């Protein structure tokens, strides 16, 4: 028997690590991976609560999140490839043409 709080705490830690990755890494690919990590962290919380309250809804949400993540990765990677083709690197800091 493990307290659900542990799972939640783990989820929070993983989420923070993901957030840190998004903020600090300049490689677009790794930024993406970090995002995936954050999604995973959220999923973990979902499933843990689903177990706690004995309902399937949490699992179903996790399932949807996985589906959306797949879609997101498909588009995201396509964009990365595009960006690479036009700039010949994957530095996220190079893509700042929207600056004010």
């Amino acid at each position, binding site marked *: 028997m493990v307290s659900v709080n542990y799972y939640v705490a783990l989820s929070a830690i993983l989420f923070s690590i993901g*957030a840190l990755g998004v*903020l*600090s890494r*300049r490689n677009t690919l790794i930024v993406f991976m970090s995002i995936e990590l954050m999604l995973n962290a959220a999923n973990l919380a979902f499933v843990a609560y689903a177990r706690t309250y004995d309902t399937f809804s949490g699992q179903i949400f996790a399932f949807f999140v996985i589906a959306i993540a797949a879609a997101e990765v498909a588009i995201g990677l396509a964009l990365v490839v595009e960006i690479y083709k036009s700039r010949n690197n994957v530095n996220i800091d190079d*893509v700042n043409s929207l*600056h*004010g």
Partner: protein
Amino acid sequence: MHLSETMNSGFYYLAPLLVFAPLVGLLINGFFGKYLSEKVVGAIASLASGTTFLVAVLLAHSTALNHGQVVQVPFAAWIHAGGLQLDWTFRVDTLSTTMMLVVSGVGTLIHIYAIGYMHEDVRFKHDEARFSRFFVFLNLFILSMMILVSGDSYLMLFVGWEGVGLCSFLLIGFWYELDLLSLPSWSNSNAAKKAFITSRIGDVGFLIAMFLTFWHFGSLQFDAAFQAAPSVAQVSPGAITAITLFMLLGVAGKSAQIPLYVWLPDAMAGPTPVSALIHAATMVTAGIYLIARSAPVYSLVPQAQYIVALVGAATALFAATIAVGQYDIKKVLAYSTISQLGFMVAAVGSGAFVAGMFHLITHAFFKALLFLSAGSVILGIERGHHTHAHHAEPKGKKKKEEHAEVFDPGDMRNMGGLRKTMPTTFWVYVVGTLALAGIVPFSGFWSKDEILLETSLHYPLIYWLLTAAAFFTAFYMGRQIWLVFFGEPRSDAAKHSQESPPVMTIPLIVLAALSLLGGALNLPFSGFHNLTHWLSSTISGVESLPFNWGVAGMSTLLAVLALVVSWFLYGRNPLKEKQIDPLKKPLGWAFTGMENKWFVDELYRAVVIGPYERLAAFLADAVDWKFWHDFVHDTLIVGGFNGLTKTLLDRNVDQRGIDAFFNSWGAFAEWLSANLRKAQNGFIRTYALATLLGVVLILGYLILK
């Protein structure tokens, strides 16, 4: 009596053929005419017209067998709206069969004549493809005319009435791109338009007469209307007077009476067979038929009758004077026709319905004869003109110039001495002239005499007007004979003129025989009142007057005198080339007036046409477009709206008030954003950082709350 009772005792069931025979003819020629030879086209058209004549004969025969019974032959339903219940019904009675016989008989002869005439005409005018079209129109005319005379209601009569107007329009404008001298011009089509529109003015009268008839008599069907007439006459005599006078306007339009006669002389722009058939023998007499048909109504209002007679008599004299001053062979005949129609209108106006119809018939014979002969003369001159041009000047270049020179084959001043070159035409022309002038025993004498006799008994003024007109008639016909056929040729064309082919002369001879003998229809001796007797079963109350030596002697004397005077002026010393008319000097301004048709056309142009055109242009340009369209709509409404919106609301209220207020906010936002934009460095990571900062702060807030 209705059809079912008489079906077995006659040919009434053939009545629809009156209309369908020409219809078949015109459809065949209309669709396939261009693939058929001229002879076939002419034969089909003549056959169609001939069938109509045959049917008319059979119908007349049946009517005679049935002692003049009126028979209605229903054909199809027509307009059934509210109280207006009208059918396509043919009416076969003595009056209508008389008209059918005249129209289809003369019509058929003219069809045959036209085969020869048009053969040459289309060649002189360089459009042979138009040959079949002519016969289509001619058949259409016979068709419309048959509807006119066989209709059982005013409305059906009106269908034919307007139908013949259409044919008249189409045929006057047959050479629509030319004028009388065969030069490119709007003149012929203008004449066609004039004819139609002038008749339409009369038609409005007819229409209003029909409206009045319907609302007062309750029906447009002849029998029903006539039955109601006497009782209405007692309640509201004014209505009947109005009906008759409005109808007179219609008659004036169609039968070329004052004041609407002006279209008929111009109508001579049509090919000569058309002038003969439509503008002399048949269509123009429709008005007389209408009045004769409406005899039961006219008999109720003597004052209106007097007005009708007066109009007729005035027209007779007025037109006769103009005819004296004309040089064109067809124009003389045209004015003569107007004048003779005046005689007929005067006759039916003064209650002499039979006399009017009698003159209508004889006039159809001799005037058709005269016109056709005139056509023969004109073609003879044309032929002479062409042969002369070809023979005398063999060189091509010269020939062209000769052709290009304006030559009027209808001008009597270009003729003279034709009795030698065109003997047949000459003799039939003389017969026609004597008939028209009213010389015993030609048909014209008997019919005209009857009119004079009738009027002399009741209306002396009318009698004297007509007598004077008769004098002029004989005079201008004499003048024409001397000018055209006697003396020496006044042009090379006349010198080389040639006689027409038999296809043209044979109908002339037949018509000449009819003109000579036509009087036998109704001789003023007891036992010979055939026409009176015949028509009495349709028109009640007609009586035949005994022969009156005084009236007959007077008119004959005047006619002979007129012919003698014309011989003194034109026959004794034949006109020379380029010589002015010998009447010009003694008559002075009066002859100028005759020459110029008393300036009536100019008067109408100044009083009616010009002002209407100016009014229309004024309404269209100034009122409707400049004022209503441009000024009111575009300037006032649109401009006003623009003024309100753009100047007042937009510039002052909106821009300086509301806009300015809100623009200040905009300016503030602009200033703010100009500073804030520095935060937008474009680095995604920074934005994410900001987002995270937000998350952290919100969470922190939640925790500390």
